[in-house]
């Protein structure tokens, strides 16, 4: 039985709620647009209901504590359907078998959940590392990224605390949304159709007059701090995979 939901985390939790309410433990959470939704299998559209989602969340918190429950959200952000299914089953089993199940690393679902969690953590950490701000002429520090997973929600606090005294924008170019900090709060921003249009026809942002200078110095530093006698491109590529180069000035 495929459970088709709206792609929000609340919707995902509602899949759990519905599968208990309807006694359908074999459900598979998917998006309505997913190719993997099996045409020959029965489908059910899950309506996102905030109250139901909250009940699942509260129930999990009672079993696991608020900190551990965040891990389910993180795995959800992987957008990986296999990991969704594993997380869905692990949640169900926390309710039926108790919280210890999370330590059963010999179990396929638990190990899949745990490995995905690790991947999301790594991507989150990479974004803390690889985000590069450019300063615009009006003082906005902006950055474009294309993370493997939808990790922007996981780095918002980090950047708000660290760069508290400068306005910044982090734009996820894969998912077409961003986070904007106005020195008070961080809020998600999306492009209006007109703005999208403008982007495809080409908009140039005016940079701060010293921005290019510092980008240049950074590249210079990157070269100078390298020890040629120790050259090890394999290691370099392992740490800075090519897919991230596009937005790293030192790799331009």
């Amino acid at each position, binding site marked *: 039985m495929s459970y088709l939901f709206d792609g929000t985390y609340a919707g995902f939790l509602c899949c759990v709620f519905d599968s208990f309410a309807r006694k359908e433990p074999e459900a598979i959470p998917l998006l309505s647009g997913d190719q993997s939704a099996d045409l020959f299998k029965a489908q059910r559209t899950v309506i996102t209901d905030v109250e139901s989602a909250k009940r699942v969340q509260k129930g999990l918190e009672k079993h696991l504590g608020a900190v551990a429950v965040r891990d389910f959200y993180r795995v959800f952000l992987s957008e990986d359907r296999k990991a969704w299914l594993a997380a869905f089953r692990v949640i169900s089993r926390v309710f039926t078998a108790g919280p210890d199940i999370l*330590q059963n690393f010999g179990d396929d679902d638990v190990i899949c959940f745990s490995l995905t969690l690790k991947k999301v953590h790594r991507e989150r950490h990479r974004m803390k590392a690889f985000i590069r*701000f450019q300063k615009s002429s009006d003082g906005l520090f902006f950055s474009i990224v294309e993370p493997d997973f939808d990790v922007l929600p996981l780095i918002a606090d980090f950047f708000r605390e660290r760069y508290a005294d400068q306005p910044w924008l982090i734009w996820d170019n894969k998912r077409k949304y961003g986070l904007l900090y106005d020195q008070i709060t961080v809020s998600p921003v999306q492009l209006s159709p007109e703005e999208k249009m403008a982007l495809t026809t080409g908009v140039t942002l005016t940079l701060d007059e010293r921005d290019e200078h510092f980008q240049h110095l950074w590249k210079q530093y990157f070269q100078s*701090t390298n020890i040629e*006698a120790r050259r090890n491109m394999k290691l*370099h590529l392992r*740490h800075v995979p090519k897919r991230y180069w596009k937005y790293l000035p030192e790799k331009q």
Partner: protein
Amino acid sequence: MERIEEKLKILADAAKYDVSCSSSGSKRKNTGGIGDASASGICHTYTEDGRCVSLLKILLTNHCIYDCAFCVSRRSNDVKRAAFTVEEVVDLTMNFYRRNYIEGLFLSSGIFKNADYTMERLLRIVKKLRTEERYNGYIHLKTIPGASEELIREAGMYADRMSINLELPTEAGLKMVAPEKDHDSVRKPLAFVESQIRELRSESKLIKHKPLFVPAGQSTQMVIGATPETDLEIMNVAKTFYRDYNLKRVYYSAYVPVTNLNPLLPQIGSAPPLVRENRLYQTDWLLRFYGFELEEILNPGHSQLDLDMDPKLSWALRNPQYFPVDVNTADYPAILRIPGIGRQSAMKIVQARKFGRLHEYQLRKMGIAWNRAHHFLVCADSPIILGTPSMISVKAAILQKPVLSKKANQLSLF
């Protein structure tokens, strides 16, 4: 503008032999300005030599009154000299930091005029960053040997980490290539900073808001392969320094030849001993996180680490009496000693086996290096082997080159 570029080139180039780039272990919060220190540290990029770039690592100047043969900035060396102004370092640091290029500043310097004069300049920079720019990012500052205790103490109020390099692992080695220096001048300031950290810690039970003082602790560095010390000697020094000064890290830096004038040193063009350096770090980790004693890994009968295998595997091959370990019954420390199993997998094994005996397919999924580990463990579906396995054949099996593109056992349907 061009001048600053040239300075950066010279002074980053001269600073790069200091391998420490750690930005972890501090807990500085952003208090109304910019920046904080992330407890886990962040590597913002990696150079083509595969080393982490976390900090803007520069010398204030490469003018130096010393003539240490292994150092590129030695006074007799014919290199371009430069010096940053205080403002230039502050401007570079802030602008790199605001663009998220770096976690912070690593500031070192050649010794010009004298120790106090140099330390005072370094202090001026970190003070300006903290007080005028309200900068709370990471600062790693070199303690200048011979600087006065007042200057060192004040610097410690602004820095997250301080370090002094031993340079060569032994006093004898140091005397060979840097007769003007000695290990005592390193020990003394390390001990002083450590005593200050300790003092503050005992006081802090009484005061609520204790001031930060070198919150990320101290570290040191030894150059490896310039002078003829054995790995046993090197690790003995490291062990002593970890113990006596409560160091956070000892760094081992494979010597990159910078001169042909000193016949005692490896000549330009000879490769730095990178594998050996790696083995020393692995040993360092085994001592600090895996419950090994130095004598088990290195001893007078075995004073050099194997280059063709990691020290844990080497230890296991020399000690077949401990193997195989049954992962379904052994305690955590014993599992941790199995080659190919790290701390995280060992923990997973101990937790998972409560739910049932573990099989090979489960262990593989947990991320252990099966090819190495399976010679040393038994699990639920291990074949029964009578007698003890021959470590000679185990070694041969592990060290043989992996066969490339062995896809023959994949089933093809079409």
